């Protein structure tokens, strides 16, 4: 549209007071820690402690503490790895992909979603580290030059995983920090005491809000976004390939890579919305920035990705039936009516049926229902990973070795502990760094005022 076809409006509406946005965001940090933050941090740290306990025990006594054995050699370690990497995906999707699509509503989410990416990756990274059983030798994953020319097994998707995830983590960290620089500078300028001023001053890298600075920042952010978007696809595709290449009934599906990407964004958006709602209710001032409209849009995206995941289930199950495969079909039937049926049916309920409520606008406005649906999605997507990883391994090509997974005490801790580890990191982040991108929120406010 050229500008002349937009009807002239009479007087321009008043601009939002941009200083207020800065105040609101910086106040969440310079103010005293609210009670809910202290309680949340306490609980998260306790859970994180449990997680550290599990990892320590596994390192000392071996991976047998987890209920893994032949044929189910992949248990909680890999299930959680896939789950947590998935949680991270929404961050980059929101900050990079939606930036390329010029969706400026993303700004309210982008900062904390990107932070979630980093913390989820840090959490996910723990699992392969300890699942291999020899964390002290993990450096063999890196193709470092050595005199014995000992290289990683390039044909193994696990090595691709190590490369894909570390690349992804690196780019995400740079992208996140670049976006933070102007806001850290704002923190520096608002800080009253010398130690915070020095701390933020050091991190601000001498930012002066010069127009040259801005131009370079935007260009770099755009280039990094263009680099990060394929990474969102590639990382979870590689995770999908871990299974698809594994040549097992329930694993060997060509749809796995793209459908893992959809599932990752699906679960990540659920976590983003939950955190958004918590931030809104925790800091009154943020309500004006993380609005119900933002949440509505995220929920719509969630519905779309959820439908893609449902399509994946359909394509996979239909194939087993259509081909009447001697191994695939028994797996599909066992999954639905065998000992794992509660897991599988709960997964279908949370990922395919419950989300249909999101078609209706009143549901997308009801905070309680939204929380129920989002928590349901997290449970459903965790179950999906469990069904793919451990349930498929239970029904291999050798029927006499069929086995049912036994959860041990340590498995249960491994399910809940990482949530504490993740949220403890996240809570530290929102105490010390701006959880909303100040300048981009101002930009969006100006655009909305003009529209």
């Amino acid at each position: 549209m050229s500008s002349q076809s937009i009807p002239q409006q009479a007087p321009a509406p008043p601009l939002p007071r941009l200083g207020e946005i800065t105040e609101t965001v910086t106040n969440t940090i310079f103010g005293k820690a609210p009670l809910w933050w202290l309680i949340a941090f306490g609980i998260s740290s306790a859970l994180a402690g449990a997680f550290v306990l599990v990892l320590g025990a596994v390192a000392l006594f071996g991976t047998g503490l987890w209920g893994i054995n032949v044929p189910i050699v992949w248990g909680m370690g890999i299930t959680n790895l896939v789950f947590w990497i998935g949680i991270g995906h929404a961050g980059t999707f929101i900050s990079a992909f939606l930036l390329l699509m010029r969706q400026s509503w993303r700004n309210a989410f982008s900062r904390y979603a990107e932070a979630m990416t980093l913390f989820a990756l840090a959490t996910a990274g723990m699992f392969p580290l300890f699942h291999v059983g020899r964390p002290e030798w993990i450096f063999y994953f890196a193709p470092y030059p050595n005199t014995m020319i000992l290289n990683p097994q390039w044909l193994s998707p696990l090595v691709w995983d190590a490369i894909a995830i570390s690349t992804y983590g690196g780019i995400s960290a740079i992208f996140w920090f670049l976006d933070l620089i102007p806001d850290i500078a704002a923190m520096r300028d608002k800080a009253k005491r010398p130690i915070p001023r020095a701390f933020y001053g050091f991190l601000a890298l001498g930012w002066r809000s010069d127009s040259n600075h801005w131009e370079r920042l935007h260009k770099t952010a755009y280039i990094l976004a263009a680099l990060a978007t394929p990474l969102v696809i590639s990382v979870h595709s590689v995770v999908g390939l871990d299974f698809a290449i594994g040549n097992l009934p329930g694993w060997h599906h060509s749809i796995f890579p793209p459908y893992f990407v959809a599932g990752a964004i699906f679960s990540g958006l659920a976590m983003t919305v939950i955190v958004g709602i918590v931030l809104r209710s925790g800091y009154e001032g943020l309500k004006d920035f993380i609005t119900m409209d933002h949440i509505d849009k995220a929920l719509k995206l969630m519905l779309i990705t959820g439908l893609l995941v449902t399509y994946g289930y359909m394509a996979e199950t239909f194939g087993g039936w259509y081909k009447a495969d001697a191994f695939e079909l028994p797996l599909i039937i066992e999954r639905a009516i065998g000992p794992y049926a509660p897991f599988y049916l709960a997964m279908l309920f949370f990922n395919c049926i419950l989300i249909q409520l999101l078609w209706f606008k009143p549901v997308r406005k009801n905070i309680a229902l939204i929380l129920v649906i989002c928590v349901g999605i997290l449970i459903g997507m965790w179950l999906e990973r469990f069904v793919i990883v451990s349930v498929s391994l239970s029904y291999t090509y050798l029927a006499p070795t069929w086995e049912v997974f036994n959860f041990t005490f340590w498995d249960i801790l491994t399910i809940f502990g990482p949530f504490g580890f993740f949220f403890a990191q996240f809570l530290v982040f929102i105490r010390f760094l701006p959880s909303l991108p100040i300048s981009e929120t101002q930009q969006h406010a100006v655009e909305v005022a003009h529209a």
Partner: protein
Amino acid sequence: MADSNAQPLNQVQMGAIVVAVIGVVITAIGALSDVDHFFQIYLVAFFFWTEIALGCLAFLMIQNHVKGEWGFAIQRILAAGARTLPLIAVLFVPVILGLSRLYPWVTTSPAQAGYMNQGFFLLRSAIYLAIWIGLAYAITGLSYRNDEAGDTGIFRRAQSLSSLGLVLFFLTTFFAYIDWMMSLNPEWYSSIFGWLGNSRQALSAFAFSFLILFLLKDHKPVSDFATKRARIDLGTLLLVMLMIWAYLSWIQYFVMWAANLTSKVVWFDPRLTTSWGGVARFIAFAHFIPFILLILPGFKRNMRNVVLVAGGLLVLRLVDVFWFVMPEFLPNFSLRWWDLGVPLAVGGIWMLVFLWSLRGHDLVPQNDPRLYAVPEESNYDTALPAS
């Protein structure tokens, strides 16, 4: 009914008539010499043009949600493309006639006989076509109605219809691809096949729309919409579609290559190990040219450049469909002199229906309040590199 005499459209129409006539004559002569081969090549032509029409329908529905600036420029092209679906239903009749010559499951009894039998196949095909035609006419009808009425309620209806329509679309295309294309080899199943087909549709429809937009770009109502930004966005989206297609194609190959299971490689084996392997390599490497060109900074600013790429991509689509279908019938790659006649005959007829549909209505949507919701270029955007 403004501006239905755009000069380039007249030329295209004349061209389409000539191509259709020549194509039909060549096809008729060829079909007399080898009926089996006629049906095989006809299937290739049918898929090629059906994918364009279906891609138009899908983007029309997506546009009702995304409301991108680029979408308004090509909205009526997509609408006309979607409204050719009744013709696709007619064009399906020869496929039905050739059913026993094309699909091995008709004569043998396959493992999935409960699903793959003639009666059920025809019933399903009728359902797919009915759903697509219904969606295309309902959604374009609402938009045309609004040209006169200018009623915002219409858009809300079009939007809800598009949401439901997209769900139906992905479901029906999933099964249509299994029935029409995958079951040429009943031994084989690939769960990604539906999405791969959708990505081909996207690529075809985008490239095709871009060509038509180029023809109309200097004509008054269209030129207002084909802004520089919309054109660059269309070029970028073409690149995105290309990347999605390449990603899905490669993943399908890679997963099956790595596992090397008999039941999975039965499809790739004739397509890669015989002289068809050369065609496969040509398809793979030829797509790098548009990829590199579209990614070059500044290339997309000139519409003429992108038109060349879009035309090349369309030709590659035809080669691609040929490679998908023909190895089931020909053990080695070969061409006959009349092979190109069939897609041209079908294409000429399809094009005439498309043009008739395109010229029956305004070339751009009228009274669309959403047009004013397209934001002006903000400072933030201009700070970004334009391509």
